[in-house]
């Protein structure tokens, strides 16, 4: 499945996605994607952080509480974190957060963790597409996170 297959009514609900990208590979890959003019969904909004290890559940919940449809962290590849293990720490926290969402009866696809490689724009765009597709699946199944509140 690709982003083109998503129905317009679902796509309409995907308005704001906050993506925390680390200062190293994350930002690097998004810049590379930009330079290569690789189109992706305009709902993707990138926040620059020093390392994904800097992003805690606080930031993620802040984003969701302020209207984001989904949040993702994009860091360096596993084993290549520029600050040793920030991406792994972030992954563990997101794992717990996903579990919280499941326990609340939501889809666990509203928060996600990815990696990308600075030299490859397509990995960043792949992450974004994957994010949008997962979100669209979640919305199709049970609506957005904002629904019903």
């Amino acid at each position, binding site marked *: 499945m690709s982003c083109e297959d998503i129905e317009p009514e679902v796509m309409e609900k995907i308005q704001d996605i906050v993506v925390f990208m680390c200062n190293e590979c994350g930002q690097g890959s998004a810049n590379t994607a930009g330079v290569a003019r690789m189109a992706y969904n305009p709902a993707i909004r990138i926040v620059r952080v020093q390392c994904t290890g800097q992003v805690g559940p606080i930031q993620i*919940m802040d984003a969701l509480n302020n209207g984001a449809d989904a949040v993702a962290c994009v860091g360096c590849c596993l084993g290549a974190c520029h600050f040793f293990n920030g991406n792994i720490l972030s992954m563990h926290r997101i794992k717990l957060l996903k579990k919280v969402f499941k326990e609340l009866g939501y889809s666990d696809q509203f928060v996600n963790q990815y*990696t990308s490689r600075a030299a490859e724009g397509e990995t960043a765009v792949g992450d974004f597409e994957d994010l949008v597709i997962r979100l669209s699946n979640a919305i199709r199944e049970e609506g957005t996170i904002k629904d019903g509140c």
Partner: protein
Amino acid sequence: MDVRIFQFNGCNKCFNETILLNGESKYKIEFIEDPKNWKEMKTDVSVITGYLLPEDKDTLEKIKSNSKRVVGYGNCTTMGGIFALANQRGYEVSPLSSFIEETEKVNGCLGEIEELSVAINSEAAPKLQNLCAVCARETTCDYLESVHRQIELEDETTCFNDLGYLCNGFVAKECKERCIDYNAPCRGCKPIIDRSGIRMLGMFGTLMGNIEVATEHSELGATDKLADRDDDITDSLPDVLGNFFRFTLSTSGLPRGRIPSSGNILNDVFTGRLIEELPLISGLLGGNRSISLTLKIIETYETANSIEVSEQTKKYRKELLDLESQLQEAIKSKDPKQYKKITDEIRKIGGNMNLSNVYFGGFKAQIDDKDNFEDYKAHVFDVVEGTYKNGSVEFTIDPIGIVKEIKIKEG
């Protein structure tokens, strides 16, 4: 000073505790158990206890307009408390601050009466330390090797978190009830900061950072697709909400849950929790019969798994039940002296008013003849899937020990 104490829904443990104020001559106290039908009159201080639902808004506004100051007393009022766990199933238990502007709040489960006096007199509250500062255990805060959910503590000097059990003490203030003294990790009823659950989640996620987990590739862009599947760690934390957000779910910033409700708030609070946590939760719930409910739950499980308890345990249990009926008398008569005496007795046996010391297999700390204790501990944690029933209590446990369904007919 005119003090009116209002008991809203559910938990009346804090309301009962306010009986202790009754003896003091400087207060003119009125206890109001049915605030909806309260006849409005001007008052100096209104103390709100019990959990609050959206339909209480009008009543609360009425109280606010008639009072010089409003004090929220106890977790249920100030943060939603344990009943806010039902928000997981669509309830809207909300903190007092979301209805009216409160003047003071006294957190805690049970809220401390000394703090309440301070708040009523609008004195400056004493600055409290972090719970870890008064905890006998010592922390190294190293990355964890593994995470456990079972509480079988032999080690009395190492921090719960270092041992792989989740304890919210890092985000809690020092308190009187001190579950940590009874080998029960803190669940954070007096948080030191806002959104303590989320912060604690971040901390515990970090502590697990060294544990290797399986990763996978996504088909798009060939990047590591992470955090998708459960692993050993998340499996060892089967009830994140109950552990991290036991008292703070309504103020945690998490959205309201979408899991269908059973219709009964008490049952919804219990559903989804772990079997070994049930006695602790029922001890927190208050109600005039929380002791008998706790013991009922324990006994239900024991009978079904044919766990033998020692004579001493039986004696303690009987004493507790006796105390409960005496306590009800004291509450009825609003006699502070009698109330104090009985609660002290309960504390002596049950550890604190949350019954932290009453546990599966009996009483955790005080049991002298160790005849069967190891045995029934093993039984309890050897979770047995199935349905358990005993009189007014009926519950179903799934293979990992989560309560799937529970029916409690309130007596």
